[in-house]
């Protein structure tokens, strides 16, 4: 394994009964980069993280974290790893300081080193002045910050962050995204899972898109966008059922794909300026009236839509 790679995942498989949660996932992340795993709920991201955290043993395949095998050297993996789980995994009846102290001990810190590091982490997450309050009294955003702080205690070389911004307010979300970038700037490798396309796009150099347990695309943002060409995505709503126009719109010049979902029609076109008048004309012929239009330049959402036929948020 080359020294520049922090994470090297090779053909991971994991099933739960008849359900194949992860099927042949492979990717590599370089040291000091933020690598995003992007995919909707149920795509297999958390199962992949669980295997890379040594919580689940893969049925097949292996992965190396800073050179330590998740199969053969689990303690080695855990010693270089910090995990921020999707859930708030804290003791709510303990204070922030008590939580950090306990978790620090679990990472092998003791005595003065532990106290010093707890103080540092409280400072990093901005909770020094409220360290003596029980976590149960914190807001969701503050809990998220402590949740992240726990993973930083032993200064890990690699951090997994499993959808850390789920269910929090925009301000806390902004703080977390900033802190992820700060971790990268400190030389840590971050494996970041999310189903928010814009987070992956903002944070990561490399992105892997997962769906139904499989990795369907991987690369830089530009490389992924190129997969769908220069197509523009147009979201429209009609005053009638979308089925009335769907077939007609698929035959409009410049339209490559028409997807009707939840009352909204998504149309992928090469040039919106050319296609939109034709779409209006076609709608009029079918006695349908377009009530709203949202034009989006190619992005990861478009890529996912192109590759799966479904919107990423679903």
């Amino acid at each position: 394994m080359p020294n520049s790679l922090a994470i090297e995942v090779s053909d991971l498989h994991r099933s739960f009964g008849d359900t194949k949660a992860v099927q042949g996932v492979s990717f590599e992340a370089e040291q000091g980069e933020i690598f995003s795993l992007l995919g909707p709920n149920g795509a297999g991201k958390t199962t992949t993280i669980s295997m890379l955290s040594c919580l689940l043993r893969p049925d097949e395949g292996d992965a190396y974290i800073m050179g330590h095998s998740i199969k053969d050297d689990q303690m080695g993996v855990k010693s270089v790893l910090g995990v921020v789980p999707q859930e708030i995994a804290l003791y709510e009846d303990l204070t922030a300081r008590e939580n950090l102290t306990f978790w620090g001990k679990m990472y092998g810190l003791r005595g003065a080193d532990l106290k010093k590091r707890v103080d540092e982490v409280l400072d990093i997450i901005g909770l020094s002045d409220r360290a003596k309050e029980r976590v149960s009294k914190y807001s969701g955003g503050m809990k998220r910050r402590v949740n992240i702080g726990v993973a930083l205690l032993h200064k890990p070389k690699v951090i997994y962050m499993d959808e850390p911004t789920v269910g929090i307010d925009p301000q806390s979300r902004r703080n977390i995204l900033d802190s992820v970038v700060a971790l990268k700037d400190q030389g840590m490798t971050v494996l970041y899972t999310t189903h928010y396309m814009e987070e992956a796009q903002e944070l990561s150099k490399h992105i892997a898109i997962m769906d139904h347990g499989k990795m369907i695309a991987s690369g830089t943002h530009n490389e992924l966008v190129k997969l769908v060409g220069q197509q523009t995505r147009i979201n429209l709503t009609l005053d009638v059922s979308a089925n009335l126009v769907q077939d007609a719109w698929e035959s409009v010049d410049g339209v490559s794909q028409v997807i009707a979902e939840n009352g909204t029609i998504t149309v992928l076109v090469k040039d919106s300026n050319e296609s939109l008048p034709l779409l209006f004309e076609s709608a009029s012929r079918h006695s349908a009236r377009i009530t709203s239009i949202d034009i989006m330049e190619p992005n990861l959402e478009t890529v996912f839509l192109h590759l799966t036929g479904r919107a990423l948020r679903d």
Partner: protein
Amino acid sequence: MKILDIALKDMLRSFRSFFAVVFMFIVPLLVTGMFYFMFGNIADGGEFNLPRTKVIIANLDEGGPKFQVDTDNIPGGESADSMGDLIVSIMESEEMSALIAPTYAESAEIARKAVDSQDAQVAIIIPADFSDEFADIYGKAAIEFYQDPTLTLGPGIMRSIMNRFMDGMSGVKIALTLFLEDAPPEDAALVGQVVQQYLHLSLAQEDDIETELLDVRTPTNAQENKAEQSENLLLSIISPIMGGMMVFYAFFTGSSTAQSILKEEEEFTLQRIFTTPTSQTTILGGKLLAVFMTVSVQVTVLLIAARLLFNIEWGALPSVILAALGIIFSASSFGIFLNSFLKDSKQGGVLFGGLLTITGMIGMIGALAGDSPVARKLSNSVSLFVPQGWALRGLTQAMSGAEISALLITALVLLAWSTAFFAIGTWRFTKRFA
């Protein structure tokens, strides 16, 4: 070290839980306390709280020439010129003041009316010839005792006092009889001196002459004996209850603390610990150690608190320690065993509401059913089908003063239960988190 860190963290969480603390300490002591106060007034620190009996005395005794006693030797004071005065002075003594509240009537009729109108509970009517009859060898000295027929306790005490007095005077009467049988008639005038001599001789060594004469302390002695008996009765009631409560709630704590394994899994903190460089053995070991430590603290606190609050005698220290260890190990391992079969903590309701309560009640049959032969039979048979029964048996043996050797069989049985529970429980948890 990490194993202790995990255990201490779990203990801290347990003792911060209001719910847990209530069921660990407050409820067992509260239930026992209820019984203590329910039955405690019979002892109440060894003092009677009986109301003073209202006694009205009609002292009509006129004394007599045959009754010439040096008043210095008459118990009760200097004003006793007759046997009637002697009785009155006794009634007015300090020792009697806690028991009776005497008032006086000028005639027997007034005294009886006072009782009839319930102004007094007892009337003591001393006839005019009481001293004369007492001094006469053939005389019959009698006091009229008139009481409210609806009352028993107060008049009963008074009757006891008067009987005691009259018994004491009977000794004097016998002495007089013997003296006068052989004495010439003119010596009858010496009756007073004979009484004086009798009193002098019989009371010479007594500091508390009233006590000797009337045995005024009889009610007090009875009170002390009764208080002692009441205290013993109280302890015999609440000691097994406290023991039963301790066993029941120790098993409750064992199960609820062991449930933290399931709760931590649901809170995702257990999985997070598994992502740290900490072995599975250490993690599970810490969780299990927390159960033992928490139950240990609970049992120790309850033993000490019950001793201090209710004065419960737990027995010889080595026996108590062995019995306590039996409770701790069986309660902890039983909790681990039961929780290992649960899918999640929601099923804990079934555990606590059902299995734990039922087995706990079976184990406590002996403590709940009292001291009847049926209860003893049940506690020696049915209750021993569950670990709580054996745990309570050990504690009961220690309380009854059994030596440590007598507890060995119970301890060995509990050890066997505990080993089996612990082995199965840890095996299942290890398999679950493998």
